[in-house]
């Protein structure tokens, strides 16, 4: 086997070993996302309570969101993003504070002096979905292990690019005309194209 091919195979193997956990998490996340989309999927039981608000009656959605976040002090959480803090058609503010461990739903009716809180732990499928989508955040906003985990996910995403390139290279360099390979490659593209066209 030519030296370049042997080298690329080695790198493909080492990258695979480094990204093994991430690849498995990505797969479990896809299965988890499918499972949790089922309307009959039972979420873990939530705890409900009412939280008196420590802001004035004229507080903006941003102020309300920040106030509730500070009062709840959910571990690992960050303040809700601006896009989450938009009142609905009834003027109520409904948003979620999500972490890798828990989900907290907050509802503040228009003019209300308290927030309705629903807080629960994530199930295992939901956890894998959240783990796979951990994104890089500024250090000051982020709990250290989440930041470390998100570095690993970032590295593994770049590894996916390398798997694509090296995997295709290894196929074409070693056995390009092998029927199994040709059929697998073609069927993947046909399935994707058919799916996109059907949904278009």
């Amino acid at each position, binding site marked *: 086997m030519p030296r370049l091919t042997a080298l690329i195979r*080695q790198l493909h*193997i*080492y990258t*695979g*070993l*480094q990204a*093994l*956990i*991430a*690849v*498995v998490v*990505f*797969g*479990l996340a*896809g*299965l988890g*996302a*499918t499972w949790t*989309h*089922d309307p009959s999927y039972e979420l873990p039981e939530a705890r409900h309570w009412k939280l008196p608000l420590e802001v004035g009656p004229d507080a903006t959605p941003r102020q309300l969101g920040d106030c509730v976040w500070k009062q709840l002090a959910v*571990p*690992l959480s960050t303040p809700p993003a601006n896009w989450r803090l*938009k*009142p*609905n*058609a009834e*003027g109520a503010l409904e948003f979620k504070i999500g972490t*890798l*461990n828990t989900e907290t739903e907050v509802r503040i009716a228009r003019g209300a002096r308290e927030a309705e809180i629903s807080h629960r732990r994530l199930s295992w499928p939901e956890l894998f979905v959240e783990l796979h989508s951990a*994104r890089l955040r500024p250090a000051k906003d982020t709990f250290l*292990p*989440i930041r*470390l*985990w998100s570095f*690993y*996910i*970032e590295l593994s*995403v*770049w590894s*996916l*690019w390398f*798997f*694509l390139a090296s*995997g*295709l290279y290894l*196929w074409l360099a070693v056995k390009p005309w092998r029927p*199994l*390979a040709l059929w*697998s*490659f073609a*069927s*993947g*593209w046909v*399935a*994707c194209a058919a*799916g*996109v066209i*059907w*949904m*278009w």
Partner: protein
Amino acid sequence: MLSLIRDIHLALGLFCAPLVLAYAMDGVRINHPRFYPKDATKSEQTYPVSASEPEAIVSELNERYGLVGRYWPPDSEGKFSIISPTANRTVQYDPATHSVRVETERPRFFSLATNLHFAAGVHNKDTAMNAWGWLVVLVSAAFVALGVTGLWLWIPRLKERRLGLLFLTVSVGYCALCLAWIRLA
């Protein structure tokens, strides 16, 4: 046995290539949005409807005009949405004319990768989205299988064993530490 595992790894890897491409593109975009342009085309159309409530309007748009996707409830302006991987539709109802104005945003290449990444579920009202959901299930299971078969293929390889074991130990230890720390927080 080893050649069978290698065949499985090869077949699954090649089959998953297009979705791996979409996931890799969107994975990079999530942390580096400036790398990609937001590319989508917009259009607008008006449809007469007999329903007046948002969810009923969405059902009617689906059945009469083929506008399929997931229902998104109204915002503070009263606009609601029909979201699918290939079209994001914002709907505004006009009670005076019993019609809806639908603004459709269709993704191009990069935005399509994003939308396909988020498309999942096999219990949608639309059969096409369910079919895509099943493809996602297949590819997700394939990811797990690729990891397992890859590990199996590495084990007998003496040349890559020492350094490979180092990579594996460091990454598994790093992940276990992060996950235990997160889960116990």
